[in-house]
């Protein structure tokens, strides 16, 4: 019997290749490549004018004995650099930065603790976040003056300690060790909020299901921190470490306002400022600034090699 059913012949649809678009006309291609650079023109101009050009000038001045005002420059080669490395009093100021380095370690740990605690549901969360971040918004000079009152004899710190019956009669800014510790403490108070906010943002970007899964698996808070939070915030952590090291090397505002660099609290940048503007040794000060820049770059490079920026896959 003949098959009377009409069999629709289904030819497999030949995928018609979409017609390749004609290559864009030449000037459109040029514009496409040029447009990002045009957008970047303004910020690049500002960057070059206010950052790279002055640094290049500073590099040039560091090889002279310029005094900052006279119209003539004398090239002295690397004399400024040898002076920096051979005069002990110029290099001893780096030991003061050690106090700020230790303080920034404390600061990072405290910021991490607060960020972890406040990323979970705690009552008055926003109030605590505000209180922690608020000091970062205040002007550094104002903070310096406030803490001068805080640390003076019979000032705020002494009064509060007296409330607890503890009367040490200790001049907080009197000896080098005590003064540096106090100033480093002020620095911690000021910058804790910034680190805290950075860590909080990083922690909150970790998906919440991971914590649920971990709790189901029976992990306690510390284990959750070690295995979920810590790997997830590694990039922010490395950034914070770099910022802390460079910040403690270039601590300036707090000690300059509070003690003016006296009593062994002179930091490297205070010394550079004094050299440049009190003793008119712009060449030497420029060399000092270049040395600081190189140290920060070296620290960044070392840190990048030790803890490379690899992608962490949590899920």
């Amino acid at each position, binding site marked *: 019997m003949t098959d009377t059913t009409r069999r629709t012949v289904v030819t497999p649809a030949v995928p018609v290749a979409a017609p390749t678009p004609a290559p864009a006309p030449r000037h459109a291609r040029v514009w496409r490549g040029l447009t990002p650079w045009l957008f970047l023109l303004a910020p690049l101009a500002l960057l070059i004018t206010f950052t790279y050009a002055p640094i290049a000038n500073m590099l040039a001045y560091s090889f002279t004995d310029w005094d900052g005002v006279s119209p003539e420059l004398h090239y002295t080669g690397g004399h400024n650099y040898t002076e920096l490395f051979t005069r002990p009093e110029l290099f001893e100021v780096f030991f003061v930065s050690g106090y700020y380095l230790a303080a920034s370690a404390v600061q990072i740990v405290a910021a991490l603790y607060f960020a972890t605690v406040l990323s979970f549901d705690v009552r008055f969360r926003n109030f605590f976040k505000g209180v922690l971040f608020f000091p970062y918004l205040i002007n550094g000079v104002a903070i310096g003056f406030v803490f001068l009152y805080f640390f003076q004899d019979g000032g705020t710190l002494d009064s509060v300690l007296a409330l607890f019956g503890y009367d040490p009669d200790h001049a907080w800014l009197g*000896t*080098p060790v005590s003064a540096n510790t106090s100033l480093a403490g002020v620095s911690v108070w000021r910058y804790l909020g910034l680190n805290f906010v950075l860590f909080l943002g990083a922690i909150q970007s970790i998906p919440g299901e991971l914590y649920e899964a971990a709790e189901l698996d029976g992990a306690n808070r510390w284990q959750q921190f070690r295995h979920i939070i810590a790997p997830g915030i590694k990039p922010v952590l490395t950034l914070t470490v770099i910022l802390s090291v460079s910040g403690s090397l270039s601590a300036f505002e707090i000690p300059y306002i509070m003690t*003016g660099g*006296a*009593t*062994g609290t002179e930091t490297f940048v205070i010394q550079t400022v004094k*050299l440049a503007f*009190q*003793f008119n040794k712009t060449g030497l000060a420029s060399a000092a600034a270049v040395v600081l820049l190189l140290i920060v770059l070296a620290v960044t490079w070392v840190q990048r090699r030790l803890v490379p920026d690899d992608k962490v896959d949590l899920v």
Partner: protein
Amino acid sequence: MPFPAQVDGTFCAVVGPDYNQAVNIHSPHKEAARAWIDWFTDNSGYDKDNLAISPLKDAPLPEVLKPYEEAGVKLIELDDSAGAEEKLIDDQSEVGIYKPDYRQDLVDLARGARKGSLDGFLGDLGRKWAAAQKTVGS
């Protein structure tokens, strides 16, 4: 009246300049600037308004200084080039005579917040000064 002390029988009084005037070497209008300075010195009457001694050599002393003229006071103009050299040595040696730094260090030394002795501290300052004195090109 001048200061009541005489040197070789004459009174002395120090003359000090007011603001200094100059024509900028990079000025595109040097003649105009010079003309202004000439007018200011010769014709403006600034010295009369301020009872000051005129910078012109042949101008008479102001009325206020008539008693000086009668007493035969010798007017001395101080030359501060030695002061300029002192500032140079001060900067070069980083001693800072007119700055608070070494005084802060001295107070720290006195109350025991800084190690050292007074003789050592002052001797150190003197050594720096002497070393700078040799190198400052004079």
